[in-house]
């Protein structure tokens, strides 16, 4: 299996007005092609920072990060980043929104356009192309945001609490939706969440981070043996083993109020 993401002894320390903050300490892990990895950890453990490093938004203090075999040295089309909100531009149509990345990357050629139009048709947004984001439901908007990210054909997707702005019911459905799209498009993704259930339901593998400075404290594969084919996130939640995974992570997080 090809390695899509590789962390080699990565540490990050940054300077703040009230002193030096050690955000990440000696992180080592790799993600294989097609794997969906959930990163779970308490707030402030450097989960979002980790994604910023992968996306090339900021440099690591030590170590190196490889995406699809190349060292990260800035933002590139190899990673696609989804933030907490869908961040669709109100003044653009859905079509105008999904091609934004192509515009920025300067790859608005007929091949890319055909690919995007294919995605829009495949995932039921084609008839909403001329509509504006405010005319769509939260789930549809999230789907449009995902297509905008997929449009630039990233090797690796980064989801940063991508559903946390949605209400609970929508969130469950959208997680299902996104999972299916990611699997269908055979994408590799790192999903950052503080929601343990969401993390388990969407992942092939789970990495648990400890409190600051962020370190990997647990790294294991999730399997749902009861079925022949892959279960959707919503169905996974009903499996007995789901509870076991939940407790395992809960114990590790050692939540204190």
């Amino acid at each position, binding site marked *: 299996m090809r390695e899509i993401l590789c962390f080699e002894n990565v540490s990050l320390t940054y300077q703040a007005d009230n002193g030096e903050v050690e955000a990440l300490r000696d992180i080592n892990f790799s993600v294989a092609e097609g794997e969906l990895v959930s990163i779970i950890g308490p707030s402030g453990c450097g989960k979002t920072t980790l994604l910023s490093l992968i996306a090339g938004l900021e440099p690591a203090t030590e170590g190196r990060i490889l995406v699809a075999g190349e060292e990260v040295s800035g933002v590139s089309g190899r990673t696609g980043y989804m*933030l907490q909100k869908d961040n669709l*531009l109100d003044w653009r*149509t859905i079509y105008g929104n999904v091609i934004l990345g192509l515009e*920025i990357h300067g790859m608005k050629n007929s091949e890319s356009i055909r690919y995007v139009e294919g995605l829009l048709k495949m995932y039921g947004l084609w008839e909403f192309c001329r509509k504006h984001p405010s005319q769509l439901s939260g789930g549809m908007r999230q789907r449009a945001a995902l297509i905008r990210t997929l449009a*630039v054909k990233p090797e690796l997707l980064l989801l940063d609490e991508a559903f946390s702005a949605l209400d609970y019911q929508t969130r469950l459905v959208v997680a299902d939706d996104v999972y299916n799209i990611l699997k269908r498009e055979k994408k590799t993704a790192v999903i950052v969440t503080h929601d343990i259930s969401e993390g388990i339901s969407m992942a092939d593998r789970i990495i648990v981070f400890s409190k600051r400075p962020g370190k990997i404290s647990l790294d294991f594969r999730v399997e749902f043996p009861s079925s022949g084919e892959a279960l959707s996130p919503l169905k996974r939640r009903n499996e007995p083993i789901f509870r076991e995974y939940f407790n395992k992570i809960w114990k590790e997080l050692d939540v204190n109020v």
Partner: protein
Amino acid sequence: MSNTFESSGRREYLYNKKKNKIIVRVCQVAVLVLVIAIWEIGARLGFIDSFIMSQPTRVLRTISNFQNNNLLMHIGITFLETIIGFSLGAVMGIFIAMVLWWSDFLSKVADPYLVVLNALPKIALGPVIIIWVGAGMQAVIVMALAISLVVTIMEMLNGFKNTDTELIKMAKTFGAGKLQTFVKIVFPFNLATLFNCLKINIGLSLVGVIAGEFLVSRAGLGYLIVYGGQVFQMDLVMTSVIILAALAALLYRLIVLFEYVVMKAVSNK
């Protein structure tokens, strides 16, 4: 939503809404008609001194006499000066705001100066402007520019800086540079701010133009007002003021129309 069937409650609601709208409109017109009527009747009956107050029929006579008093030329000049001063103010203001948004350093350095310049009554610069650029149309235009420029810079810079940071981060994750971020996110995000700013500026530019014409005293409606006042021709003063009001309304409408056209073009992308 279907419009084929309307309940009686709905019909009544719509009817009342429409009725209210018509009543407001009728009252608006009535106020205008009433003021003009009182003014005219008062002048005729003698309890309003038409020498000091002028009177509607005399204003109409002055307007219909436009060939002798060069009224059209003066209106044209005021219109032109306002449009030029306003456009320069808008373009330069947006550009400077963009530069200051671009460079946090420049913006921090410029901040106290902007605050002081904003508070300074720009009309005080009138004599200086006339000496620097010469007593003519150019001085009037600079005056209009001076009045609208600082406000534009401050308003637009404030808008640019308050652009949703999540949207900017999103653009960055796609590898957008500063220019792309500005063109694709920051500027369109602030279109509403821009048009609010322009609506205020068109009025401010007119203030600058009239003040400039008072000082330069060569041509334009401002000149006519000063001249009419000096020779005690209140007909001319009142006519100019009324035309000025109409001009202000027209310019404002033009901005609203421009806004409509731009918003429509942008949102169809």
